[in-house]
């Protein structure tokens, strides 16, 4: 029963994507650990971490697509959930440092000793246990999203207004986390991690392990999202996206459906953030910046919103482009990214994955349909 629920959402695209992920999960460990460093097939630890980072972004994009592509909520603050998940994991990693910090204090992270704090703030308790941190990675973003969505959806804040207040949310969080007395390391954030679950965080094998964990998380996230989308619940979500008032008049409590998708999405983003932090080695408040949330939106748009596989592709492609451009032509990166925003919205409203369908639609359409629908500027 449950298996059927999870499998019914999988289509051909999903098969391709899951196969690619499975190949990655096998090939990358083999290439990173099983080959000699001078072999052309060898993957450096750096490359493994980079690939892992892309896949974390892919999971973030997937979670964003779940709300934007299927419920029509454009979140400009999804990086907030991502970063909160990252901080939860970062707090665990900070506690794992123990007495190996600069000040050698077994209980307090370095920045607290530096600020002359004498005891651990209450909200840091429990983070020395991995299981606790792993739960918090989902609970903290989930709770915030639930509370935020509860108020916002109930008072029917929609469209642009919702986008702007999600932006205000992440901006407020950024300002808050920049403050030293919040107890999250202020400006510098959390860094200098030593080990995770007892494994040295710098070691190649740990990196490969984290990569495989990311692949698995992405696969699970994908299967979960497609199951949700394909279920009856998903049909209602799509109906909410297309005509919310009509769905409400039919007797559905749209707020609850939206709240469910929104909270689930935030939890997924939190997991993505938690996997991101140990691979990148740092988490700081600038991840909260509205710009990074909007960048996540463009990954979804490039890949194709409302397609699930598209955002994964978009996140990997755009971030690969970013790594390439910022190294080779740093001046041009912002032009390229800016141009991408404009071109995708103007010419690829359905993204790369929608391109084929778009072309198929347009070619015969040109012959038959002469007039476009009336001016839709309507004010």
């Amino acid at each position, binding site marked *: 029963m449950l298996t059927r629920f999870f499998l019914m959402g999988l289509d051909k695209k999903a098969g391709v994507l899951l196969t690619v992920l499975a190949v990655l999960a096998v090939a990358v460990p083999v290439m990173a650990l099983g080959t000699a460093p001078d072999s052309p097939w060898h993957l450096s630890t750096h490359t493994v971490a980079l690939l892992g980072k892309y896949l974390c972004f892919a999971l973030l994009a997937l979670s964003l697509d779940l709300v934007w592509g299927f419920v029509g909520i454009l979140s400009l603050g999804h990086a907030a959930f991502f970063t909160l998940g990252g901080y939860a994991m970062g707090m665990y990693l900070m506690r794992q440092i123990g007495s190996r910090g600069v000040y050698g204090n077994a209980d307090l992270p370095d920045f607290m000793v530096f600020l002359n704090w004498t005891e651990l703030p209450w909200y840091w308790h429990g983070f020395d246990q991995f299981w606790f941190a792993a739960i918090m990675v989902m609970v903290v973003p989930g709770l915030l999203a639930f509370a935020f969505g509860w108020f916002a959806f109930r008072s029917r804040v929609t469209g642009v207004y919702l*986008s702007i207040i999600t932006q205000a949310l992440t901006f407020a969080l950024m*300002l808050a986390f920049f403050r030293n007395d919040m107890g999250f390391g202020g400006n510098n954030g959390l860094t200098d991690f030593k080990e995770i679950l007892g494994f040295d965080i710098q070691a190649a094998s740990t990196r490969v392990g984290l990569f495989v964990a990311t692949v698995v998380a992405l696969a699970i996230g994908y299967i979960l999202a497609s199951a949700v989308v394909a279920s009856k619940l998903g049909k209602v979500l799509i109906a909410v996206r297309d005509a919310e008032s009509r769905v409400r008049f039919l007797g559905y409590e749209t707020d609850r459906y939206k709240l469910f998708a929104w909270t689930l999405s935030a939890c997924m983003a939190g997991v993505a953030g938690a996997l991101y932090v140990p691979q990148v080695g740092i988490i700081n408040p600038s991840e909260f910046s509205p710009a990074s949330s909007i960048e996540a939106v463009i990954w979804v748009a490039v890949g194709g919103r409302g397609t699930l596989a598209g955002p994964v592709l978009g996140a990997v492609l755009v971030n690969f482009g970013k790594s390439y451009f910022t190294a080779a032509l740093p001046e041009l990166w912002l032009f390229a990214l800016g141009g*991408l*925003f404009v071109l995708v919205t103007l010419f690829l409203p359905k993204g790369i994955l929608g391109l084929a369908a778009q072309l198929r639609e347009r070619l015969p359409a040109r012959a038959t349909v002469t007039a476009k629908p009336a001016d839709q*500027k309507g*004010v």
Partner: protein
Amino acid sequence: MHRAFCWLLAAFLALAAPSAFSANLGAADLAPLVRGLGAGSYADTEKALAGLAETGDPAVVPVIEALQAGDLHIRKADGAVVVAKRAGNGYALTDPLTGAALGEADRNAVEKIRINNALRRTISATLGALTLMSPDANTRRQAAEAVFKSRDANALDALNMALAKETDERVRRAMTQARASVLLAGDASDADKIAAVDVLKERGDQDALALLNGTANSVSNGGSDAVKDAATKAIASVEQRLALWGAAQNLWYGLSLGSVLLLAAIGLAVTFGVMGVINMAHGEMVMIGAYATFLVQEAFRQWAPGLFDFSILVALPVAFLVSGAVGVAIERSVIRWLYGRPLETLLATWGLSLALQQAVRSIFGPTNREVGAPSWMSGAFELGGLTITYGRLWIVVFAFLVFGALLVALRKTWFGLSIRAVTQNRSMANAMGIRTARVDALTFGLGSGIAGLAGVALSQIDNVSPNLGQGYIIDSFMVVVFGGVGNLWGTLVGALALGGVNKFLEPYAGAVLGKILVLIFIILFIQRRPRGLFALKGRAVEA
């Protein structure tokens, strides 16, 4: 203390000297007196000093300063008194009165005029007295203020003398306060001290409060209970007054921040409010306006440095046109394809903002550019307990002028009529012969042009860098959303309210926390009133 006091006075005088040169005596008459300084014994020097002081001529001040600094020498050859400054092996000589160069002299050819401690005190008192007697009222007032701060008991006699002669009301007040401050520091009679406390109560600012606190807490100072009582009462009164002025100051800061927000948001109110277009590149229009100001100022520096004060006035239309033209170009090339799809517009304009930032960074470099303030915008004036800078004042005035002009343009002109017609019913406006596409482009240009004007104003108070606009975009959106989309008055109220709340929270919560609280407040506010403070009603809501 002593020395610092004298230097202060001397510095003030040096500034005021040229205008104050209504000498009672010519340089020729002063010369014998100056020569007397080098007569020999300390007593002779003191006598000569008194003679110089009696003239009350500001021209003697540099001479006495030189004496104080130990620069005054006697030329052995003819016994003349000169200012000698080390130059290479010997001394460069100048005339102490006229400042004319007298050539160089060997080290052995001059002898320093020595002073002792008693003489030093006389010198300070003389300098104080001379500036307090200066013909220039401003110099006298500044001298009195300096005494107020230094509380130098030596200045008391000079002060009393000056007070007796003083006619200017403001200077008189300053001198009375200075005298009160000196009296409270010294050991005057109780009656004198209580009178002094009253004077300070009248003054009622932070400095007075500090002095009164000192008096109220002084035991060693021989302070009697009566004086202490008077001081305690005075403190209460001053504190109340200060709290009032503090509130007024917050109000002013709030108004000032509110007007900056208004300037930044008002263009957005046009593009977002009237047209329903989310322009994330709005901040970059502001930035372009600021860079236009920079370019105009560079041109002035290059070709007409004398007219620099007018550069801002020239920059206003230039910035409006440049930003407006960029806006029209954006509308024609990108936004017109995206009407009715606000979220897509948001993404496309965000992309444009990234590209514009990078373009400016490539052309002008990533560092801050220097934009100067014209003379009529620099400086400050005091209004009661408020300090108001002219720059801020002009920005407040300017924000309201722009707001008024926009209101008039929308209500009273043909263009404004077309904008409103297209906003309310596009197809009907089209049927009536309004070229809607053109109105769209011009409206967007208008909004962007106003952003350019904001850029001119912000260039005066913020760093002109490629990131200038980013700092304002979120705030501007908050203002428009808070005030209510499609309503200019809402934008005005929103900007002033948010500015005021922010500044009133700042003293209690700190700048950052204050801002966070405001953001949270807006998020909650939107829940209560999803369409803002002044929501449009009726058919327009469905837009």
